[in-house]
């Protein structure tokens, strides 16, 4: 199970990084979404993987799942969800304003200096 989870995290991170490096806003946002999935699973696994173990102390149970990573993941999911919504809105605004969805700013720099001289 550890191998499976680790591979999943690795593949998602790799795919996310690849998409981020495309430098166009839609793939970059998708890539960041993938990266946040990867980090959520990673955080979840940081409390050790266990199947069918209760996270709350109870009589007669020996093996417990660590409840803290679950709380951390919940916080991380909420935050990353909100952040993704914000970045989608800002990217949409930038795209509609300049009809260009490239994330790199090298070209706009040149345009500005050319326009000024």
């Amino acid at each position, binding site marked *: 199970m550890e191998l499976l989870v680790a591979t999943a995290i690795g593949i998602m991170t790799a795919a996310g990084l690849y998409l*981020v490096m495309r430098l166009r*806003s839609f793939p*970059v*946002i998708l890539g*960041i979404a993938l*990266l*946040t999935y990867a*980090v959520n699973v*990673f*955080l979840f*696994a*940081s*409390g*050790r993987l266990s199947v069918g173990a209760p996270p709350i102390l109870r009589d007669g149970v020996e093996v417990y799942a660590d409840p*803290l*990573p679950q709380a*951390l993941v919940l*916080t*991380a999911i909420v*935050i*990353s969800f*909100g*952040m*993704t919504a*914000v*970045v989608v809105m*800002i*990217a949409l*605004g*930038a795209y509609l*304003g*300049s009809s260009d969805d490239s*994330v790199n*700013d090298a070209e*706009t*720099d040149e345009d*500005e*200096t050319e326009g*000024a*001289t």
Partner: protein
Amino acid sequence: MTHWLIAPVILPAMLAPFIVLAARYHIGIQRVFSVAGVLMQIAIALGLAWQASDGTVTLYQLGDWAAPFGIVLVGDRLSTLMVLLTATLALFVLLYAIGSGWDNRGRHFHALYQFQLMGIMGAFLTGDLFNLFVFFEVLLIASYGLMIHAGGKARLKAGVQYVLFNLLGSTLFLFALGAIYAETGTLNMADLAERVALVDPSETVGIRLAATLLLLVFAIKAALVPLHFWLPSSYAEAPAPVAALFAIMTKVGAYAIIRVYTLVFSPEVEVTAGLHGTWLLPAALVSLAIGMIGVLGAKKLDRLVAYSVIGSMGMVMVAISIFTQVSISAALYYIVHSTLAGAALFLIADLTRAGRAHLNLTLAPPIAGAALTSAMFFVAAIAMAGLPPLSGFLGKLMLLNAAFETPAMAWVFAVVLISSLISVVGFARAGSVMYWKAKSVEPEPLQDGQEAPEAPSILSYVSVGGLIGMLALYTAFAGYTHDYMTATSKQLFAPEPYISTVVDTPGKLTRDKVTKEAKDAE
């Protein structure tokens, strides 16, 4: 237990929704509440700094839960100093935003401003790493809104970059936190300090990885080369008061490095030894060099200021990476100085922008009110470039003094001194093109119906003058502040009172002897 320690977080958290909900369409009421809020912040921060100035560490347990089960806020000399610095900066920047009318060029400036302050204050006060992440996100999400305040094509584009870069940084932060939790089972900084010291030296891969990841995250926030790419365009395109407030944001990264690497991963801890000297120092020297070369090479005044911020962060990081008590106190002195000087320069660039169509470093007719603006630029540039008599020079002197005993002394001296020269040339060039040679250009005659640009309002001048006055005061009382920074640094290098205050203060679920023994048995 008094509740004052959480007041810097609670106050803006209450004010911001009030401003959004009750004063939505009344810019006057928004301004009154925002300024009143910041003034109260300063009063609270002064009280907290006074309380911490004799070396006491105050603790606030949220919900009365004992650490490490609950989240704690901790106020020691360093935290309260940074809170006071933030509140002071926030007042002048807010006055400028009101005086220049920036706050009225888009919606919700004041509410976002308060949320931003909430995040910064929380990041300085928290004693828990995951809580630090949450406060980082609070300050970031407010900064996204402030960054694109008043809109515009170039600003939105820079905003997208800024948000994406910070989202990547946040993801990295979570990876680091997950790794730390997996290795130690705690995220409370004081508790972590105890447990990291217990890690078996033969099994340090995980904790070393986590410490390095954490350093990377804070280096992104501190805009350390090669992780600085987000800074120049976002600071240059952000509205001027926002860029001035952002001057404290890079310091949040520097603060986090100082806090975590003195408390948790201190140089004495075997598992993470050698991290600062091997990686941080070269990166810091390169940042210093690149920042100052950027000052010389910039084609626009706002970019120039942004690069000077990178350079000054490089200076701070050089001092941090030497990592002795003397060098950390030099870093603290330089942090306060460069925050004030950087913010003043961003505001002065905006005063200049008000009088001319663009900020390109090309000849243009003189701006309205050029005499006062250029005088202020002169003073702020002297401070930023580190020429005597202002505080930048003193900070640099302290840094060089601290570098004497290190093996990398030659490198530090060479880079610091040469980059200072470069930045002096860069600032002198910008100032002479912007303000001095402008006299030689005849202003174009005004067209019909075209009005001459107005001089900036008095309040704008007062707020920038206030920042420069703070710099002058900071220089004049350098003896006293230097003693205070030394005491702060001393407290950082003797973290036992901090740790025992956090871990041993009783609360709900206090770690009593029985559970401690049970843990040891595990």
